[in-house]
C-alpha cells in the first residue's frame, strides 16, 4: 500500500515494473480451481452412494430425472440393512478379525522393532531389510499357496484363518515404521534410563512406548485400515456367508440378490466404510504420518 502511495507522490522517480502481484493472484486462482475440480471428482462417488442409499427402491428404478438428487429421502435402506442378520454377522466378523489382527500386529511389531532398532545382534540389519521386502510382496502373489496352507490347517471358511494370514499384510509395514520411530529416539534417553536403573523391559514399557506413542498410533491405524479393507484373502478363503467380513460380504452376498436392492447395497457399503473414515476424520494427522512414514523412516 505504502509503495503505491509513494508511487503517486513521486512521479518520475519510481515507476512500477513487473506484475508480481497479478502473477501470484493467477497462481492462487489456478490452485483453487484445480482443487475444486479434484474435490468434486473425488467426492462424487461417495456422494452418489449416499444419495442412492437415501432413495426408495421406486425412486431408484424410475429412470426419469437427475439421478444425483434425492426427491423423497428415506432411511429405510439403513434400517433394512441394520436389521439384516447377514450384515450384522459381517460387521461382527470384521470387528473380531480386525481387533485380533491389530492386537497381534502391534505386539509383534513393537517387540521386533525395539529389538531391531536398539539391540544390535547378528543378522539384525538383514532382518530389517527383509521386513521391508516382505512389505513389498502383494497379497495376490501368495494367496494360492496360502489357500492350500490354510486349507491344510482346516481354517478355510473360518474367521480364524483370516486372523492367521492378515498379519502378512500388516506386520511388515508396522514393524518398518516402528523401527523408524524407535530409531529416532535419542540414544541418550536409553542411557539415562540405564543409569536410572531401568531393565530392558522397563525401558521398552516406560520409555520407548510412551515416547513413540504417535508412531504406535499411526501403526495401529494402518493395521486397522488394512485389515478392515482386506479383500483378496477373505474372497479366496471364505465362501460361507456366516464367516465373511464386511468387504466380501457386502460385495458378494448383498449383490447376489436377484433384484438389485441398490439402496440397501449402498447403505451397507457406506456403513462398512464408516469405521476407517471416522478414524481418519479424527486422527488425520496420525493417519497421514503413517502413510508417508514408509518411504521416509526406518
Amino acid at each position, binding site marked *: 500500500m505504502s509503495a503505491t502511495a509513494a508511487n503517486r507522490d513521486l512521479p518520475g522517480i519510481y515507476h512500477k515494473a513487473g506484475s508480481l502481484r497479478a502473477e501470484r493472484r493467477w497462481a492462487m486462482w*489456478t*490452485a*483453487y480451481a*484445480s*482443487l475444486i475440480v*479434484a474435490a468434486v*471428482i*473425488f467426492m462424487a*462417488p*461417495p456422494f*452418489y*452412494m449416499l444419495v442412492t442409499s437415501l432413495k426408495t427402491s421406486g425412486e431408484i428404478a424410475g429412470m426419469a430425472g437427475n439421478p444425483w438428487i434425492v426427491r423423497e429421502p428415506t432411511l429405510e435402506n439403513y434400517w433394512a440393512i441394520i436389521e439384516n442378520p447377514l450384515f450384522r454377522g459381517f460387521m461382527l466378523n470384521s470387528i473380531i478379525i480386525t481387533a485380533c489382527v491389530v492386537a497381534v500386529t502391534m505386539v*509383534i511389531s513393537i*517387540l*521386533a522393532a*525395539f*529389538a531391531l532398532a536398539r*539391540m544390535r*545382534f*547378528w543378522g539384525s540389519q538383514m532382518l530389517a*531389510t527383509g*521386513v521391508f*521386502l*516382505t512389505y*513389498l*510382496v*502383494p497379497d*495376490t*502373489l*501368495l*494367496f*494360492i*499357496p*496360502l*489357500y492350500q496352507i490354510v486349507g491344510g490347517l482346516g481354517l478355510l471358511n473360518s474367521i480364524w484363518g483370516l486372523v492367521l494370514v492378515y*498379519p*502378512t499384510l500388516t*506386520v511388515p509395514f508396522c514393524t518398518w515404521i516402528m523401527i523408524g520411530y524407535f530409531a529416532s529416539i535419542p540414544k541418550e534417553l536409553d542411557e539415562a534410563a540405564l543409569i536410572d536403573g531401568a531393565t530392558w523391559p522397563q525401558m521398552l514399557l516406560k520409555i520407548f512406548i510412551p515416547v513413540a506413542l504417535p508412531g504406535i498410533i499411526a501403526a495401529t491405524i494402518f493395521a486397522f*485400515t488394512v485389515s478392515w*479393507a482386506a*479383500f*483378496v484373502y477373505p474372497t*479366496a478363503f471364505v465362501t460361507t456367508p456366516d464367516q465373511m467380513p464386511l468387504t466380501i460380504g*457386502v*460385495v458378494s452376498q448383498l449383490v447376489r440378490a436377484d433384484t438389485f436392492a*441398490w439402496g440397501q447395497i*449402498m447403505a451397507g*457399503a457406506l456403513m*462398512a*466404510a464408516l469405521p*476407517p*473414515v471416522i478414524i*481418519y476424520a479424527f486422527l*488425520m494427522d496420525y*493417519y*497421514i504420518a503413517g502413510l508417508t512414514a*514408509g*518411504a*521416509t523412516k*526406518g
Partner: protein
Amino acid sequence: MAADGTIAVRDAAEITGGRANSLQRFARRRSTIAFVMTLPLLAVIVGLVAYPALFGIYLSMLNRRMTEFVGFLNYEILIESETFWNVFFQSCFFAITAVLLKALIGFWLAHMLHHIPNNKQRKWRGMLLVPWVIPPALSTLGWWWMFDPSYSSINWLLSIVSVPEVPWLGHHWWARIAIIMVNVWIGAPFFMIMYLAALKSVPEQLYEAAAIDGATSWQRLRYVTLPMMANIISITVLFSLIVTFANYDIVRVLTNGGPRDLTHVFASYAFQVGILSGNIPRGAAVSLFMLPFLAVCAFFVLRGVVRRNKEQM
C-alpha cells in the same frame, strides 16, 4: 542409596568369584533377548511369506489333481494360451497407464495444495484423501453402480453435454478405461500426500536462492523441486507399480474379468483359474508370473529407500 550400595557390593562379590566379563555376558544375553523378541516377526515372515513362496513354486509344478510333478508344464500351457497373453497385456497396460496418471494428477494436486495458504491446506488435504480411506472394494461397488448399463449416473451427466451413452462395462476397451479410472481415483490421493510431504521437505531458502538467481517458476520446478523430489517420486511410482500390477479388488468388483475375459489382470485370472476353476497349480503359476516384474520393482524401491535414509543421515 543404601539399597544401591548393597546391590553393587553383591554384584562385585559375584564378579571377584568368577572374573568372567559379565558385561560381555550382559551384551550376549541382550542379543539373545533381542532375538527372542524378533521371533514372532520371523515366524510371520518365514511361515506366511517365505514358506508359502517356496510352496507356491512347488505347487505350480504339479498337475491339476496335485498328484504328479510336471515341471514347467503349467507355465508352458499358459504361455501358449491366448487368454494368458491378454491377461499379460491388460496387466501391463493397466499398471503403466494408471500409475502414470496417478503420478501426474498426484503431483499436480500436491503442487496446487502447496501453493495455497498453510492454514487452508489441512481442510483440502483432508477432503482430497477420502478416496484412499474408503476400503477399495466398497468404493468400487459405488463406481460399479455409477457404471450400471441402464442407470449410469455418469452417462446421465454426459448426456447433459450431449455425449452419447457409453457402454462402460459392456465393451472391453471401455471396461479397461473404467478400471483405470477407478484405480486412479483411489490412488491419486496417495501420490498427492506423498508428494506434498516431499515438497514440504524442500527448504524454502532453496527457492528463494533460485528466485534471486533469476529462475522462473518453471525453472524452479525443473532445477530445484524435481531433483530434490526425484528419489521420493521414484519410490512412490515403483511402489505403486507393484500394488497396481498386483491389484485384484477393482477388477473383481467391476468386471470380474469380463467381457470375454478381456479385462483380467494376473491376480484376477489367477483367482479365476486357481480358486474358482479349482486348478490350483495353474493358478499358482499365473500368480508367479508376476514375480520377476515385482522383484525388479522391489529391488529399485529398496535401493531408493536405502539411498534416502543415507541422505537423511
